[in-house]
């Protein structure tokens, strides 16, 4: 069989991957720089018998996909910063009710309306902490169309496996950049289907009673079992409760099911890190510039390395500690004021050796920008 090579935007790679992963339902609201995902879905989903809805706002969009997911569909929405802000309450509802869904946030400059057509990575902490209350979340990112494809499939797989919303933190540069994509064969990447209950009709089904492995089989809403779903703290039947033991148990379950599986969800790439005294840590569009610099300097004998993170949440602290253990200085390259740097400092043994190479003016950080900052860190001046 011939290989399927395409030349596409990152946003389109994301949309294609979602369909590959089994997406059946998409609801969204137009917003730059994510709209190409909705446009692709509007065209393709009805052809596949799926549903695309353009809702009245981002709040309605995420609510509609959560409703559709509960009936047994794989679902997604896509947005950018302002829309992602609007989605936060419903995101918490999906966390609390454990309804799988994927939310792509193609980041742009913020706060507020910010820079609609410029790049930023300012929503890393919002992805983690944006909705209220104690919880855990999964957020993935990627730097190339090919990796966006792979990570989007991962996002759907994690959403189903852990019954959680998963956030795809893309950015304006990778979202709009056109490049080569090799679409994997149909069985090229494993996809995870919904885990459905084996309890037959007429037998008591407990929608919120985890199995021994912590997973919660679902029953399609509107199908064999009638049950209640609520954003209130709830018991195994899905009924509201204020019983402190049950409240404690549920919040532990919501946090532990993500944190205890952080290793399974860790995705990263590494380049020349074993002998690099100066190690760059980066992700998304910034990692492209970081990699370019690393490869250029290697040709001149300078030992730079790169750890490219693809799973941002749950943050892979142990992985970062291990990969950074031989580096004399760690330079986190990102387009914000150090949101991932904070986590890297928490992870490494000597946080004073972790530095920030950033750009926050809406322009893509360049290899020269990074090189200049490395020179300053090394005491060589600009």
């Amino acid at each position, binding site marked *: 069989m011939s290989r399927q090579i395409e030349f596409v935007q990152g946003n389109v790679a994301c949309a294609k991957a979602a369909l590959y992963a089994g997406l*059946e*339902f998409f*609801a969204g609201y137009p917003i730059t720089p994510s709209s190409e995902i909705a446009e692709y879905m509007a065209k393709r989903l*009805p*052809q596949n*018998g799926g*549903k695309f*809805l353009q*809702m*009245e*706002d981002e*709040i*309605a*969009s995420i*609510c*509609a*996909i*959560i*409703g*559709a*997911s*509960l*009936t*047994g*569909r794989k*679902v997604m929405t896509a947005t950018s910063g302002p829309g992602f802000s609007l989605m936060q*309450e*419903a995101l918490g*509802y999906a966390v609390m009710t454990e309804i799988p869904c994927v939310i792509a946030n193609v980041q742009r400059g913020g706060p507020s309306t910010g820079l609609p057509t410029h790049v930023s990575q300012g929503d890393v902490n919002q992805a983690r902490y944006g909705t209220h209350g104690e919880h855990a979340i999964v957020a993935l990112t990627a730097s190339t169309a090919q990796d966006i494809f792979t990570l989007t499939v991962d996002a759907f797989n994690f959403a189903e496996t852990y019954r959680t919303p998963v956030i795809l933190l893309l950015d304006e540069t990778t979202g709009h950049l056109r490049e080569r994509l090799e679409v994997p064969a149909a069985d090229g990447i494993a996809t995870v289907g919904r885990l459905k209950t084996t309890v037959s009709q007429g037998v008591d089904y407990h929608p919120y009673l985890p199995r021994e492995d912590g997973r919660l089989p679902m029953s399609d*809403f*509107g*199908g*064999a079992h*009638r*049950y*209640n*779903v*609520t*954003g*209130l703290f709830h018991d195994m039947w899905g*009924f*509201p409760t204020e019983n402190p033991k049950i409240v404690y148990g549920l919040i532990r379950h919501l946090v532990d099911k993500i944190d205890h599986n952080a290793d399974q969800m860790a995705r990263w790439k590494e380049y020349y890190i074993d002998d690099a005294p100066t190690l760059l840590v980066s992700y998304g569009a910034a990692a492209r510039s970081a990699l370019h610099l690393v490869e250029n300097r290697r040709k001149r004998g300078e030992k730079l390395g790169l750890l490219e993170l693809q799973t941002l949440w749950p943050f892979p602290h142990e992985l970062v500690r291990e990969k950074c253990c031989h580096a004399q200085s760690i330079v986190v390259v990102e387009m914000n004021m150090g949101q991932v740097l904070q986590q890297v400092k928490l992870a490494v043994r000597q946080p004073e050796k972790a530095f920030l190479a950033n750009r926050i003016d809406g322009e893509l950080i360049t290899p020269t920008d990074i090189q200049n900052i490395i020179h300053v860190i090394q005491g060589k001046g600009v």
Partner: protein
Amino acid sequence: MSVRDYLRERFFPHMWCPGCGHGTVLNALLRAVEKLGLDKSEIVMVSGIGCSARISGYVDFHTMHTIHGRALAFATGIKMSRPELSVLVPMGDGDALAIGGNHFLHAARRNIDLTAIIMNNRIYGMTGGQFSPLTGYGCFGTTAPYGSVDHSFDLVELSTSAGASFVARSTTYHVIELAGIIEKAIAHRGFSVVEVMSQCPTNFGRRNQAGSAVEMLETYRKQTVPLDSEAAQTSPEKIRRGVFVEKKRPEYTEAYEEMIRSATGES
């Protein structure tokens, strides 16, 4: 099947105050469902937040208690995914028309086959009596201690102009009429709106000298008239009850299925 079979008795006693009208709405709703002969498993109920929203816990349907104001958006996702299900969306006046006003307008515009039952008690009851978009000019709430300067929506006119293809109003005094209207609303193909005037003696009545629950019900009897009655002509100041709109308009899920057939080249 008796009405009792539609209840989740283990969820009782309910949390509504003595004299609250919402239990009467539940009663009328279940009688309508019984009359239609719907199976419990064919019905989804999606609610938001507030006293009204708690109705979803008490019924043995597929029930989803969501977030404030967004019930119609969740319900739209469910209905689009499973058009064969009957989807009922009970809401309060604040839930449907303040925080959820935009979703309400757009659900009506799409004419998606959902049954919106707005339990209008003119107040935010669960949070203790703050004024709502239907409290009315000059009426009192904890956040309108000098009388509200906000004017109300007319829910019937609002729904009609937004495109709802079934629009009706009744009260908790007129229980038999109410059950009949809800029955028609559920059977209707398209977006149906039923406004139910439902008394809140605790938080509206007390602050507005409306009297006890019984007196508030008595007011519903005196101050409302059937839409097509002579009294409606002679007493235009009174609130009209009945079915205001019942028309055929293309329904959203059906139009979408048609679009899928066209996209896949089947039609």
